[in-house]
């Protein structure tokens, strides 16, 4: 019977997870390897909502590796996985960083980069609710400064 680990979210919900799934997080791995007892691992920076997404991701990665899942299938899962609202996506990034999960962090950071790709400055502003605080002259100066990238 595989080892299971209990994780406790910031809002006090507990999750039972197989060790190999939990160990996709280097943070959790260090905590477990450094403590003797079987107590639940507290994750004060991660809410239950986000933690369940992280666990969903980790479970799939472990399963995909075991079953030798194709690159295409993994990519399909990843693409669906990141189809969440912006705020949730950012929270997953923060969690992946805190939990030290390189694969998840790379995926989610690239997702945000893709949200910016190919957009004009005004489109980017709308996407992320950025306020334009340039004067008209400043905006023109900055446009010229970056013209080389669009020639």
């Amino acid at each position, binding site marked *: 019977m595989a080892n299971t680990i209990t994780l406790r979210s910031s809002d006090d919900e507990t999750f039972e997870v197989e060790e190999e799934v939990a160990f996709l997080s280097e943070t959790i791995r260090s905590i477990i390897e450094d403590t003797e007892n079987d107590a639940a691992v507290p994750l004060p920076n991660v809410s239950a909502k986000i933690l369940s997404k992280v666990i969903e991701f980790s479970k799939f990665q472990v399963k995909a590796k075991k079953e030798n899942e194709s690159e295409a299938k993994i990519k399909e899962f990843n693409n669906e996985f990141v189809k969440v609202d*912006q*705020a949730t996506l*950012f*929270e997953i*990034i*923060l969690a992946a*960083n805190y939990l030290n999960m390189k694969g998840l*962090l*790379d995926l989610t*950071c*690239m997702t*945000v*980069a893709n949200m*910016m*790709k*190919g*957009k*004009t*400055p005004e489109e*980017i*502003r709308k996407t*992320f*609710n*950025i*306020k*334009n*605080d*340039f004067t008209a002259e*400043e*905006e023109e*100066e*900055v*446009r*010229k*400064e*970056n013209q*080389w*990238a*669009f*020639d």
Partner: protein
Amino acid sequence: SSTRGHMSSEIHPLGVRPSGNALTSLREDVERRVRTKEQGLGALAALGDTLLLRVLESCAPRTLAALAQTSKAMRAFATHADVWKAAVLETFGGRFRYDASWFGTFATAAERERRRDGDDVHASKRAKAEPAMARPRTSVSAEIYSDALHQRYMCASMELEAEWLEVSTVPEETSGELSVRDFVAKYEAPNVPVVIRGAAKDWRATQTWTRESLVEKFGDVDFVVGGYDMKLDDFFTLDACEDDVPLYLFDPNFGEKVPELVSDYDVPEYFAKDDLFSLMGADRPHYRWLIVGAARSGSSFHKDPNATSAWNAVITGRKKWVMFPPHVNPPGVHPSEDGAHVAAPLSLVEWFSNFYQYAYDGDVKPLECICEPGDILFVPSGWWHMALNLEECVAITQNFVSKANLRKVIAVLDTKCEALLSGLDKSRRGSLGELFNEALKSSPDDEVQSILTEYQSKKAAKAKPSALGDAFAAGASFSFSFV
């Protein structure tokens, strides 16, 4: 603090300030700056500065150029030097000339590439004839607080404190007054460093290697800079670059590319007497480097690979050294258990600011010195060492195996631990130990033979009686004083 002469707002090119500034500024200024950042980053503010920079590192240059036009705060992030330095190296390798900023450097290199007709000879001639393109300077500032953005500019502009340069405790000898026999007895055998003043002063290199003459003769030659091939002439455009971790010319193949440079110096007798890797002929790992770096460049704390010893000669410039014995970790430096990976600040100035003060807390003190042109430093096997160039510096260094450290070298090569070994193609490292041991057998020196035989018989005696014959187990039974 060591930012004499710089106000915080002058350090960052767009006026970004460290967060500590908020403690001493007027409340309305603080509130305005905080608002500028919040509104200028929008939803992305939730990520925090470090993660926002991480996202930007995944963005293509064109995306960054669009982001830079969205708001003042976002422009500060989208033009951050480290993001564009990485983009330059990843996109162009060493094929660039520095132009005012890393952002400007990328823009210039991209434009040059677009104009190129595909005829390499004409393109490079044209590129050389053009002065570095003046990057449009804008007056648009970004008055926000961000340690993540400010830090590297502060390290890049930080002055060196006088007290970092005062201590001189590495034993000194004068060239001409130190016999080979005394060198072995006093320093090599007991594995202790020494700086031999003037040992290189009569080299043709020390007389003739000025920047002007090197550029004139070898300006078009590719040297290894930060791992990339870069023309020497292009490398010197980095004079104008203020980096916290300056790109460093560190070339292990200069001897093969430009044999003329090798004939400009002579390996001192202290080190030439036995260089046992030479028995391997063409199979020997990298052993000699040409080193050129600007002020503030250098090497952070490390031990030399393969348990070799080294000598380092300053040709021009001045080099500050801090050294710790093999069994003492320098403050702020964290090697992994097998010694193969080391976590430490990359910026040398950062190490001095944050950790130098603790260097004298322990029972074992470090040894320090400054090498002037013509001086040669002996770095014994396994010693931690850090080198900081105080001004532009050209140096030659060679690693070597002599009878004094032969036993340790055989042992570390025997571990076959890839990360501890270095200097050959990765695919060959596994057999570096075997190749070396074979080569040793051809040495006419009885002492060399007996060291090797003694090691191998000890190893056979302690080997586990298992079908796998675990090389690690046998190796681990010896205590390596250098790990």
